[in-house]
C-alpha cells in the first residue's frame, strides 16, 4: 500500500445516492406498495361548509358488489379513543381544545369534511360506493371569515367551546411601547393581509394500514415527516400500546409541512384495517389534497410603526388575527412564533404584539414551509412602505435599521440574541450584485417606453435551529439522536429518525459520517423510515442540517473511537496511534499495518475477545445543537409588470444567503430555489379560494395554479461566508428561508414597478386580475 489518501466529501456537491432509484422509476412511494388481500378506501365528504348531520344511510353502498365495509362517523367513534390532536399534544398546547371525531358525527365543519369511509376491493369500486351513501344534512350558517368568527354571535363550530376562538386574544409588550411611539417623529398605520394557500406536494397524503390479527400488531406504511410522530398519533387515537404499532415509510413525494403525524383520514384507515383484519390503502386524489388535506396562512395584521424622520424604525405595534380553518392544528400556535420572530434582524426598541386565532368553516390549518413567514412578509412590506414615504431606497432603509454584528451580539427585543447573523453583509453583497443606480437608469428608460420594471429586496433570519440557550436550541422537540453501527461488511450504518422527503439526507448525512469516520462515501448507509429500528425524530423546522448533521458527526466520532479501542487489541497498538482512513485502520505512518474496517468488525463479531474488551461496535449518540445559530440573508428580485395584461415576469432573482457551512452546495441551492419558487407561486398564482358559502373554489390544478418551468427564473445564489460559532458543527438549516422571504421580495418589486401609478400594496396575492385593479384604482 503506497499511500492512504482521505477524500473529503463534506462541502462538495456529491451526487445524490437517492437518484439512481428515483431516475429509473424504482423509488418506492406508499401508493406503489401492494399487499396480499389489500382493500381500498374512499371517503364520503361533505358538500357543505357547515351543517348538522341528520342521518347517514349506507345500506345501498354496503350492498354494492365489491364493497367490503362502510364505516360511518358514529361507527368509527366506537372503535377509537377521543382526544386532542396528537401533534398539538406533543407540542404542549394548553389552549382551547375542541372535541371532534375522526369522521363527522354530529356535524360537518368544512366542504370536504369526511363523513364515512367506504372500503372495497378497488379504489374504483370504493368511489362507486361513496356515491351510494345517502347523507342528510341540515345546513347551518357558514363561518367563512375571521371577522365573522370573532363575532360572539357566530355559530360555534365546536359545541364544547361555545365560540370560534382557537387561541384567546393575548397582548405582550417588549421594550417600552408607549414611550417609543411617543418619541417617534412619525407613526404609520397599515393593514396587511396574507392569503390562504397551501403545500401541494406532488404526492398527496396516503397510507396503508395492515393489522395482523395473530400478533395484534398494526403496521402502517405511511407518507410522513416522522414515522415516530405518526406512531404516537395512531397509538393514541386507536388506544393501542406503542409496541403494537409499527410505522414504516419509503420514498415520500414531498410534504412541506403537510405530512406530520397522522391525519383524521389516515387514523380512520388504521381503525378500519384493525376492524376488518385486512390491509387497507388510502391515497388521496388531488381534489382531496386541495380541499381537505389542509391549508395555511390567511392572516391579517394591523400594524403601527414608530419611525424617525431619518428612517429609523423604532418600534412596531401589531395586531394579528389568524384564520385556522375548521379542525385544531398548528395554526393556534403560530402567533407565538410570529411574535418572537417579528423583529427579525432589526434593532427595534419596542414591540407590542397581540393576536387571536379563530376557527372557520374552511379546511384545517397545516404547517407550510415557514409557518411564521408572515412576520417577514409584514415587516419587509412595512419597511418598503415607509421607505417610499421617506424617499429612501430599499437597501438603504434596511442597512440603516439592521442590527450590526457586535460582541456581545445584539438581542432581538423579543429576547433571542442575533448571534452570528450576517444580514448586513448580505445586504451589502446584494448591493454589489445588483447595481441599483444602473437599474434605476434602465427603469427610467423602460418607463419612457411604457414598460414597468421594478426592483425589490427583503431580508430574513431563520431559526435553523436558532441561537444557543442553556437548555439547547429551541428547535422542535429538542435533542437529536442517532444509532451508528459498523457492520461486518464494513458498512457504517446510520439509523436516524429523520424522514427525508426530498431533502437528500441519505446523501448529506453519509457525506458527514464518511469524513468523520474515515470511509468512502459509498460505505455509509443511512437507514430511515421504520419505528422498529430508528430513533425518535422529525424532519421539519429546518432542524436536520444542524441537529442531524451534528449527531452524524459526533456519532461517527464516537463510533470511530470505539472501533479504534477495539482495534488496539487486535493490532496490539495504542488506540492513540491508530487512524481510520479510506476504510482502513492503520498505525499512523505505517501503511503496511492497514486492515479494512470490515475485517475489524468481523473480528469483533467473532467472539474471540473476552468480556473485558468491548467488541460491540455500535453507539447511540445524541446532539444538543452545539452552538447552533441562525440562517438568513437577503433576496432581491427584478420584475416586469405588463400593465395591459397584469402579467408579472420575474426577470432576475438574486440570493445572498448564509446558512453556515455547506454540507452539499447543490442540495442547499436546490432547497433555496424550491422555496423561492413556492414564494413566487404564492404571490403570482396560488390561492386556496372559498366563496361566501364556504365552497372551495380551487379544487383542481386548473384552479389552484402552481408555478411551471416558465414561471420561475434562474435564481442566482451567493453564499455569504459564515461566522463559525461551533468547533465542529456549523451547518444550518435552509429548508424554509426561500419560502419565507420570496413573497415580500417579489411584492416589493411589483410595488416598485407600479410606483408611477401611485400603487401601494397591502396584500400578498397579486394575480393578473388584481394587478389590473391596482393599476386602474391604486
Amino acid at each position, binding site marked *: 500500500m503506497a499511500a492512504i489518501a482521505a477524500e473529503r466529501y463534506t462541502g462538495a456537491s456529491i451526487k445524490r445516492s437517492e*437518484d439512481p432509484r428515483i*431516475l429509473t422509476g424504482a423509488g418506492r412511494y406508499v401508493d406503489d406498495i401492494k399487499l396480499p388481500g389489500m382493500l381500498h378506501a374512499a371517503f364520503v365528504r361533505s358538500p357543505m361548509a357547515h351543517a348538522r348531520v341528520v342521518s347517514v344511510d349506507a345500506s345501498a353502498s354496503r350492498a354494492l358488489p365489491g364493497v367490503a365495509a362502510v364505516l360511518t362517523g358514529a361507527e368509527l367513534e366506537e372503535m377509537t379513543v377521543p382526544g386532542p390532536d396528537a401533534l398539538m399534544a406533543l407540542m404542549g398546547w394548553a389552549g382551547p381544545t375542541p372535541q371532534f371525531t375522526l369522521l363527522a358525527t354530529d356535524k360537518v365543519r368544512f366542504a370536504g369534511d369526511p363523513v364515512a369511509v367506504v372500503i372495497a376491493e378497488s379504489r374504483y369500486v370504493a368511489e362507486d360506493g361513496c356515491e351510494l351513501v345517502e347523507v342528510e344534512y341540515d345546513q347551518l350558517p357558514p363561518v367563512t371569515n375571521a371577522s365573522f368568527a370573532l363575532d360572539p354571535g357566530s355559530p360555534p363550530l365546536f359545541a364544547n367551546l361555545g365560540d370560534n376562538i382557537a387561541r384567546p386574544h393575548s397582548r405582550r409588550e417588549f421594550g417600552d411601547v408607549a414611550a417609543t411611539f411617543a418619541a417617534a417623529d412619525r407613526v404609520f398605520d397599515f393593514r396587511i393581509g396574507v392569503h390562504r394557500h397551501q403545500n401541494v406536494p406532488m404526492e398527496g397524503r396516503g397510507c396503508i394500514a395492515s393489522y395482523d390479527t395473530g400478533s395484534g400488531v398494526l403496521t402502517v406504511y405511511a407518507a410522513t415527516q416522522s414515522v415516530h410522530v405518526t406512531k404516537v398519533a395512531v397509538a393514541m387515537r386507536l388506544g393501542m400500546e406503542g409496541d403494537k404499532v409499527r410505522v414504516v415509510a419509503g420514498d415520500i*413525494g414531498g410534504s412541506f409541512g403537510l405530512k406530520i403525524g397522522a391525519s383524521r383520514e389516515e387514523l380512520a384507515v388504521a381503525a378500519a384495517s384493525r376492524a376488518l383484519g385486512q390491509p387497507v390503502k388510502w391515497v388521496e386524489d388531488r381534489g382531496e389534497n386541495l380541499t381537505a388535506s389542509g391549508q395555511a396562512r390567511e392572516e391579517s395584521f394591523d400594524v403601527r410603526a414608530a419611525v424617525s424622520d431619518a428612517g429609523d424604525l423604532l418600534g412596531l405595534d401589531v395586531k394579528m388575527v389568524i384564520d385556522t380553518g375548521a379542525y385544531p392544528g398548528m395554526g393556534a400556535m403560530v402567533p407565538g412564533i410570529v411574535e418572537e420572530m417579528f423583529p427579525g434582524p432589526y434593532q427595534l426598541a419596542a414591540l407590542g404584539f397581540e393576536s387571536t386565532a379563530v376557527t372557520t368553516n374552511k379546511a384545517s390549518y397545516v404547517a407550510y414551509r415557514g409557518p411564521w413567514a408572515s412576520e417577514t412578509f409584514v415587516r419587509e412590506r412595512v419597511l418598503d412602505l415607509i421607505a417610499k414615504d421617506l424617499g429612501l431606497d430599499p437597501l438603504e432603509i434596511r442597512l440603516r435599521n439592521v442590527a450590526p454584528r457586535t460582541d456581545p451580539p445584539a438581542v432581538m427585543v423579543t429576547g433571542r440574541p442575533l448571534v452570528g447573523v450576517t444580514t448586513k453583509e448580505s445586504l451589502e453583497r446584494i448591493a454589489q450584485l445588483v447595481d441599483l443606480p444602473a437599474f434605476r437608469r434602465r427603469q427610467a428608460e423602460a418607463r419612457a417606453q411604457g414598460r414597468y420594471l421594478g426592483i425589490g429586496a427583503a431580508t430574513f433570519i431563520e431559526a435553523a435551529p436558532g441561537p444557543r440557550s442553556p437548555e439547547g436550541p429551541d428547535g422542535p422537540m429538542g435533542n437529536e439522536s442517532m444509532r451508528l453501527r459498523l457492520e461486518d461488511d464494513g458498512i457504517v450504518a446510520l439509523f436516524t429518525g429523520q424522514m427525508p*422527503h*426530498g431533502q437528500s439526507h441519505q446523501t448529506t448525512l453519509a457525506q458527514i459520517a464518511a469524513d468523520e469516520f474515515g470511509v468512502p462515501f459509498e460505505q455509509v448507509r443511512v437507514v430511515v423510515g421504520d419505528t422498529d429500528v430508528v430513533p425518535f425524530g422529525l424532519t421539519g423546522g429546518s432542524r436536520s442540517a444542524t441537529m442531524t448533521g451534528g449527531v452524524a458527526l459526533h456519532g461517527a466520532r464516537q463510533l470511530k473511537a470505539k472501533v479504534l479501542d477495539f482495534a488496539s487489541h487486535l493490532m496490539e497498538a495504542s488506540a492513540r496511534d491508530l487512524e481510520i482512513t479510506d476504510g482502513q485502520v492503520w498505525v499512523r505512518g505505517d501503511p503496511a499495518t492497514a486492515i479494512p474496517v470490515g475485517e475489524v468488525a468481523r473480528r469483533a463479531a467473532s467472539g474471540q475477545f473476552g468480556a473485558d474488551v468491548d467488541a460491540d461496535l455500535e453507539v447511540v449518540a445524541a446532539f444538543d445543537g452545539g452552538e447552533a445559530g441562525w440562517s438568513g440573508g437577503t433576496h432581491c428580485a427584478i420584475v416586469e409588470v405588463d400593465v395591459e395584461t397584469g402579467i408579472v415576469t420575474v426577470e432576475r432573482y438574486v440570493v445572498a444567503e448564509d446558512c453556515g457551512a455547506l454540507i452539499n452546495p447543490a442540495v442547499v441551492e436546490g432547497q433555496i430555489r424550491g422555496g423561492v419558487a413556492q414564494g413566487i407561486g404564492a404571490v403570482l398564482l396560488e390561492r386556496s379560494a372559498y366563496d361566501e358559502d364556504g365552497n372551495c373554489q380551487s379544487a383542481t390544478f386548473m384552479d389552484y395554479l402552481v408555478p411551471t418551468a416558465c414561471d420561475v427564473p434562474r435564481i442566482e445564489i451567493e453564499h455569504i461566508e459564515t461566522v463559525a460559532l461551533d468547533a465542529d458543527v456549523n451547518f444550518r438549516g435552509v429548508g424554509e428561508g426561500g419560502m419565507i422571504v420570496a413573497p415580500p421580495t417579489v411584492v416589493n418589486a411589483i410595488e416598485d414597478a407600479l410606483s408611477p401609478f401611485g400603487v401601494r400594496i397591502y396584500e400578498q396575492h397579486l394575480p393578473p386580475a388584481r394587478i389590473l385593479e391596482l393599476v386602474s384604482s391604486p
Partner: protein
Amino acid sequence: MDITLRVNGTAREGSPEARKTLADFLREDLSLTGTHLGCEHGVCGACTVIVDGRAVRSCLMLAVQAAGREVTTIEGLAMKGASEGGMGRRAGGGELGALQQAMWDSHSFQCGFCTPGMVMQAVAFLSDHPDADEQQIREALSGNICRCTGYQSIIDGVLLAAERNRER
C-alpha cells in the same frame, strides 16, 4: 375487455375494465409503479408515458385505448444498476440513459415524485428537438409540475444531456 399491447418492448396482455385508465393499468395490472399519479386530471404530467413515440398523459387515456400500441414507461429507460458502473447506459444503448445520467449529474430532482413524468416528457421532446435551447425546453416541460426544485436543476439536466448528445 381483453387487450394486447407492447410495453417496454414486450408483448403484454390484460383484461382491464373499460373505465380503467392506462396509468392504473400500468401500475396495478402490470406492476409498473414508476409511472406516478399526481393529479388524475391531466395537468401535472407526473403520469407521462410514451405511446407510439409521443408523450401522453396516462391518466387521461384509457387502458383499452392503448390496445395494439407501443407504450414506453420510465422502467423502459432503466439504466443498469449504478453498482455495475452502468449508470447512464441504457440496456440497448442510445441517448435515453444519457438524459438520466445528465439529470443525476445536475442534481435535477429532490423528492422524485414528478421525476418519471418529467424524464419521459424530456426524452420525447429531446428526440424531436435535439438542439433545443433553454426557453424551448422550459416551454416543453411547462406541462410537468415539480413542487421541489424551482425547475432550474431539471432544465440544466436537459441542457447538459443535449450538449453531450451534440458532442458525441
